[in-house]
């Protein structure tokens, strides 16, 4: 087998090389006219270059013909009182060629207009893209058409005469397939790796949503490049992506072969078993995450993305020009979140530990029943719990104020103050969260050997000393991961804050994650919210790294 690996390496490497060349060649062939990407590029162009005057109507691009027509639907007959009527009788087509505008009227029939209706764009095989948009009031003013007629701008983008695309595409694809087959044959011994990669290829080819989201990413990238005033990047059309992705397994195979020098990896079975998870995790987690990160650097406005760089981060980390005590200041919200997390974790742990100590007594009757009852808070969906508690904290008709009234105490206006709302939130979340800690502590308690306590008895230890010097240090290895987990969950506990206090009063009890939600879905500021989320992510990553060291140290007690 010593000679063959060398040969086996060549075929996939050749495939990879061919794919890359293919991509470069076709990219160079001006695919900017391809498919839906062309229309978005064109609409971007038109959006960023408003028409200043009739002379602007004459625009040509290099190696393409962009034709702009102004179509004006004019009313004939008496003007109507309502401004939104424009019965069509005839329309004029106006083109400008420098100097004085000349209006020529052509009678375009309604059928012609309807036939080319698909108003945003129409992509035909002959390579034309049609675009239509109404003029803005400023443009209308600039063109001297301030009247209430309906003006549209039609753009037609015609590609170069020849489009070498189809043939090259087919030829290249077949070539890639043949070479891939040859490579596979050569690589018979690496069947499992090959099989796994074929699986990847197949799933990519049939998953159109993937391609759509990738084209989204391209949109973002394109906007980014546009705003940098760079020439429009050549966007890869969808039908080009498929053969490219088809050759991806071969590329990967070649890379793998390069690293392993032809020797089969002893882990290849492991990789095969991991492949489905790797694929789904990357599709479901990594790609959306990458999109989110990209979004954080853009501003979103009605479907268009505009690159703003680090502006969002400056705004957030600079407190948003609000003073520190203002709820919209990032640091205030951060402080509230930290307070919320600390209070909750403290209460969860102490309550859970106490209950676990109680349940761990020898000879306690109905132990199983108590355990089951105490787990119920955790089992109920927290959405329902939050709504019920919110109702209980209602100032007039809530159960809690009602009970206080029965004892002769004045009812508390819970949601009217920061601390009242915080109490309501913390109470709800504690009720929800202590079973988890209790279960962890119970398990850990049962692993403490009994004779340690007996030795302590002989040494004369009181129950408190036994707890502090024996139980607690031995619980820490089990509690530490639970506390870390619990604190991360509580940090991001959206449901309770949103449902119980709703951020009252005035957004003061909003934590970081509800704040981000409001930015995204109440104010439509997706970019800002994405930046917010990214900041939250960074904070939590740092926290996780910090606590990793703590838990490692704690584990050494038992290992």
């Amino acid at each position, binding site marked *: 087998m010593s000679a063959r690996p060398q040969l086996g390496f060549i075929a996939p490497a050749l495939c990879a090389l061919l794919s890359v060349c293919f991509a470069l060649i076709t990219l160079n062939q001006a695919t900017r006219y391809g498919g839906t990407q062309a229309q978005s590029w064109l609409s971007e162009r038109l959006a960023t270059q408003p028409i200043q005057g009739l002379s602007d109507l004459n625009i040509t691009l290099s190696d393409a013909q962009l034709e702009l027509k102004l179509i004006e639907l004019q009313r004939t007959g008496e003007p109507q009182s309502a401004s939104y009527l424009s019965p069509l009788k005839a329309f004029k087509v106006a083109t400008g060629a420098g100097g004085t505008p000349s209006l020529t009227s052509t009678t375009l029939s309604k059928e012609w207009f309807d036939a080319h209706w698909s108003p945003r764009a129409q992509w035909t095989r002959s390579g034309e893209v049609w675009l239509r948009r109404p003029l803005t009031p400023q443009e209308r003013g600039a063109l001297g058409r301030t009247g209430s007629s309906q003006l549209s701008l039609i753009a037609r983008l015609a590609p170069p005469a020849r489009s070498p695309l189809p043939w090259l595409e087919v030829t290249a694809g077949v070539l890639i397939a043949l070479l891939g087959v040859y490579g596979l044959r050569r690589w018979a011994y690496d069947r499992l790796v090959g099989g796994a990669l074929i699986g990847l290829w197949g799933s990519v080819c049939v998953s159109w949503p993937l391609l759509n989201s990738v084209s989204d990413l391209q949109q973002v990238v394109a906007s980014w490049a546009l705003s940098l005033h760079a020439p429009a990047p050549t966007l890869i059309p969808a039908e080009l992506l498929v053969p490219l992705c088809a050759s991806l397994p071969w590329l990967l195979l070649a890379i793998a072969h390069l690293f392993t020098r032809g020797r089969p990896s002893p882990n290849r079975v492991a990789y095969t078993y991991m492949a489905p998870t790797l694929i789904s995790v990357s599709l479901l987690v990594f790609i959306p995450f990458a999109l989110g990160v990209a979004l954080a650097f853009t501003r979103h406005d009605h479907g268009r993305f505009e690159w703003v760089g680090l502006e969002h981060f400056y705004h957030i980390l600079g407190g948003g020009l609000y003073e520190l005590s203002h709820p919209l200041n990032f640091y205030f919200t951060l402080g509230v979140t930290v307070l919320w997390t600390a209070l909750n974790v403290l209460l969860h742990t102490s309550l859970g530990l106490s209950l676990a100590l109680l349940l761990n007594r020898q000879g306690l009757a109905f132990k199983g029943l108590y355990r089951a009852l105490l787990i119920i808070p955790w089992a109920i969906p927290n959405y329902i719990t939050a709504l019920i508690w919110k109702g209980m904290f209602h100032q007039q008709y809530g159960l809690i104020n009602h009970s206080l009234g029965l004892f002769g105490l004045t009812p508390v206006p819970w949601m009217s103050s920061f601390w009242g709302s915080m109490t309501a939130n913390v109470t709800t979340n504690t009720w929800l969260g202590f079973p988890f800690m209790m279960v962890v502590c119970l398990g850990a308690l049962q692993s403490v*050997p009994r004779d340690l306590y007996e030795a302590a008895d*002989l040494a004369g*230890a009181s129950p408190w000393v036994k707890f502090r010097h024996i139980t607690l240090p031995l619980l820490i290895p089990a509690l530490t991961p639970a506390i870390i987990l619990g604190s991360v969950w509580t940090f991001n506990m959206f449901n309770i804050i949103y449902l119980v206090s709703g951020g009252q009063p005035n957004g003061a009890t909003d934590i970081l994650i509800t704040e981000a939600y409001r930015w995204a879905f109440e104010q439509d500021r997706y970019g800002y919210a994405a930046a917010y989320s990214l900041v939250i992510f960074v904070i939590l990553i740092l926290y996780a790294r910090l606590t990793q060291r703590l838990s490692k140290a704690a584990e050494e007690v038992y290992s």
Partner: protein
Amino acid sequence: MTEVNLRALCKRYPNGFEAVRAVDLEIRSGELIALVGPSGCGKSTTLRMVAGLEEISSGELLIDGQRMNERPPKERGVGMVFQSYALYPHMSAYENIAFALKLQKVSTSEIDRRVQSVASRLEISELLSRKPKQMSGGQRQRIAIARALIREPRLLLFDEPLSNLDAQLRAHMRVELSALHAELGATSLYVTHDQVEAMTLADRVVLLKAGEVQQIGAPLELHDEPVNRFVAGFIGSPSMNLATLQAEAVSTLIQEVSGEAQQALAQDGALSIGFRAHHASLCEPSERSARFKAGDATLSAVVELVEPLGNESLVYCSATLPGLEPWRVVVREEGHSQAKRGDAVALTCAAEHLRYFSADERGARLR
């Protein structure tokens, strides 16, 4: 020096099970008493009652004449070494030993002095900064002993301390414990299921079975003069060869019955006869008459297995009994044995080494 008295100590569990029944024991000062017995005989329970870790159901416990039934463990002045050492895993050896003193709020310098002195006596001074998981089994045990000693207890309790060690280390530690006891001279109560440990370490041995005391006495006393069949069979390695026969059958084995044998054989019915492996000897069948004298027991046997142990050999024989199933016996021979599997041999045991027990359940010794 401390004297401990156990008077009719009983342990009864709520479900009615009696783990310990009326144990009477007097521990003189400076003695090391070993509690031995098979699993479940109540020895650990007895120990824990003395320590105060189990409630005494009835009976009295007196330490230095004071009744200790209701006193909590820390007031009894006992130090205990557990089977699994019970060292606190998160504390260093120093802290483990010093724990009790810390609770008594002894000053740091005093703690240090005492810990160092105990450590040097047990030769663990260089281990003090380590954690339990960084030490071997033997080292951990010494730390456990140090911890028990630090409070200068009146009574030392050992709960099967050597069971968790391997054979070689066990033997080594046996010697060390023996030396330690000789040096300290503290009154100790030692629980073990291994009768070799009991025999070697203890001043007196208490043998328990099913919660009842079978015999209390010096190790050799239990070995040489067992009071019942259980004691005879438990003490000694290899175990005593015992058989239950009818009296007539016994008399066919013994020539010229006299003395003890006569009394025992005067009974009707069955009885048990036994002799130790090292009290029997083998010879050729033809030499039988030359070898033995009046009162000795003799058996014809066939060798089944010979275990050469180097310094001695254990010969397993199947002795024929008239009208009964063969009796499997073990005979110990010095050095290398000439016997081979399948040989026909004659077994002799001197009269003074024969022991007779009644054939009932109690198996009391017949003299």
